[in-house]
């Protein structure tokens, strides 16, 4: 229906405060926010600031650390650990792409083809979550063990020759190679890809597929022009939920890799917990955070979805 008025006043909920009661009502959101936000400020934001100051401190554990604006820590950390940085980004980017490639068909299957099996399949996707992910990651040690059925099969199918040529495996081993670490990362973060994908696919009206077919689109064109664009919010959320934690992860590299597959998370962890070089650990954390925020911002801006919270 066409209207002459510009704004709909019929459903407006905002009101200027006129009475004391209304003024009190205005304070309600602040009281609701206060405890939770205070928690985040004290235990999330403040530590980051503290971390920033730690990164420009010098000293030792015995004599204590002092802020000396020693920015060289950043330069030193970068020169020493840039291979781990690059490796982290490369591994997690590969894992993210693999997650998308593997997760999309499954999310699509559940959303459009599962029928009455839909709920069961969803349970099967989520259920592994309930077994400690460390135990499940350790299981990959068994699956990919030297001379085990998986590795022998890959060997006899000459797949190992290909991966050796690519430099992601070595000889007749999968464990302690980049392939094992990426495989573990992909496995661990796959549900984080599938769930947002499923959520956005499930919202698509199946009649849109029929409409596209009716308008002379082949199934492939329908997917490219209708389904995939509509699932973009899920793709964006899924890739972020996969890429960010995968970049900072050090468990897969530790359990499934060797010293040659160490990622930046491993370095931060050992600097902090073993070497006790807090300034270096802080500087590395900051570089990692800045790098990820920059990449994420760029990515979000490019994909045009900013409403993620």
């Amino acid at each position: 229906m066409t209207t002459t008025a510009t704004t709909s006043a019929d459903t407006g909920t905002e009101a200027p405060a006129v009475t004391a009661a209304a003024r009190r009502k205005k304070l309600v959101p602040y009281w609701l926010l206060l405890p939770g936000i205070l928690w985040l400020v004290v235990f999330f934001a403040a530590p980051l600031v503290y971390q920033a100051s730690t990164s420009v401190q010098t000293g030792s554990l015995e004599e204590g650390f002092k802020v000396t604006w020693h920015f060289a820590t950043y330069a030193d950390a970068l020169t020493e650990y840039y291979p781990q940085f690059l490796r982290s980004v490369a591994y997690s980017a590969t894992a993210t792409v693999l997650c998308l490639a593997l997760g999309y068909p499954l999310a699509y299957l559940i959303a459009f083809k599962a029928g009455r099996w839909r709920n069961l399949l969803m349970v099967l996707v989520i259920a592994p979550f309930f077994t400690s992910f460390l135990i499940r990651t350790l299981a990959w040690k068994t699956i990919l063990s030297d001379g085990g059925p998986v590795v022998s099969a890959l060997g006899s199918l000459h797949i190992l020759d290909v991966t050796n040529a690519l430099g992601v495996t070595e000889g007749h081993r999968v464990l302690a190679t980049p392939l094992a670490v990426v495989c573990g990362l992909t496995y661990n973060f796959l549900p984080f890809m599938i769930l947002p994908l499923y959520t956005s696919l499930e919202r698509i009206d199946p009649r849109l597929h029929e409409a596209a077919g009716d308008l002379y689109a082949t199934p492939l064109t329908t997917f490219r022009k209708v389904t995939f664009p509509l699932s973009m919010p899920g793709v964006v959320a899924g890739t972020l939920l996969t890429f960010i934690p995968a970049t900072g992860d050090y468990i897969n590299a530790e359990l499934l890799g060797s010293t040659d597959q160490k990622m930046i998370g491993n370095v931060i962890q050992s600097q902090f917990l073993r070497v006790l070089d807090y300034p270096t650990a802080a500087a590395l954390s900051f570089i990692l955070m800045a790098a990820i925020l920059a990449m994420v911002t760029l990515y979000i801006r490019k994909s045009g979805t900013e409403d993620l919270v």
Partner: protein
Amino acid sequence: MRTVTRWLRRNLVVLVGLGTLGYLMLPNVIVTVFSFNKPNGRFNYEWQRFSTDAWTDPCGVADLCGSLSLSLRIAIWATIGATVLGTMIAFALARYRFRARSSVSTLLFLPMAMPEVVMAASLATLFLNMGVTFGFWTILIAHIMFCLSFVVTAVKARVMSMDPRLEQAAQDLYATPFQTFLRVTLPIAAPGIAAGALLSFALSFDDFIITNFNAGSTVTFPMFVWGSAQRGTPVQINVIGTAMFAVAVLCVLAGQLVGRRRRRS
């Protein structure tokens, strides 16, 4: 041959999807199978022979059940804390207009967009410099911190999709603001709150990275498993992993069954 390729093309999505599902399920199958293993050495990575020893004595390894109960206690308290605080924030965001709204949203988004290792190291640095003793309380504080944003996201989505007229209708039908919240708002928002709580529990119970930095000498279940990867993996951790999986699946199936029966009646 042509019919085979055509069949393959038509069912490619199904095949790849089921393949992915297999990839997801495989480790759980291994964990379950190897909970019946009797390994020769300290590590439970290679199949030797069938045994139910670990199942009959799940606490037979030192510190294992202690760490498990600690993890459960932390997860329960972290869930309660994060759910209460997160639900309050979600209501404020979904129902009110106020200044600083976008900064609040950013503050909530950042913990989800930040690698755990960064948050872990930062918080640990703060605790170290404040001279706080690491242990149960530092872990709990950290867990509530990183679960909070997830609860807010889950609850807010639910509250936003709720018709504000429902609450107005309740007030129109003589419900006081408190009764309105209790009888209408809360029951309708409950699935979102439950989802947020469940997610918190899972995240807290399974967290390793942040806990590892903020636990001191306290050992939670994931930390026990991590340590065992170096010292030797007892079969009992597979038993616990399998049991957790079974309990979770049973709970979900029971929930669905109840839901279906309620819908039918």
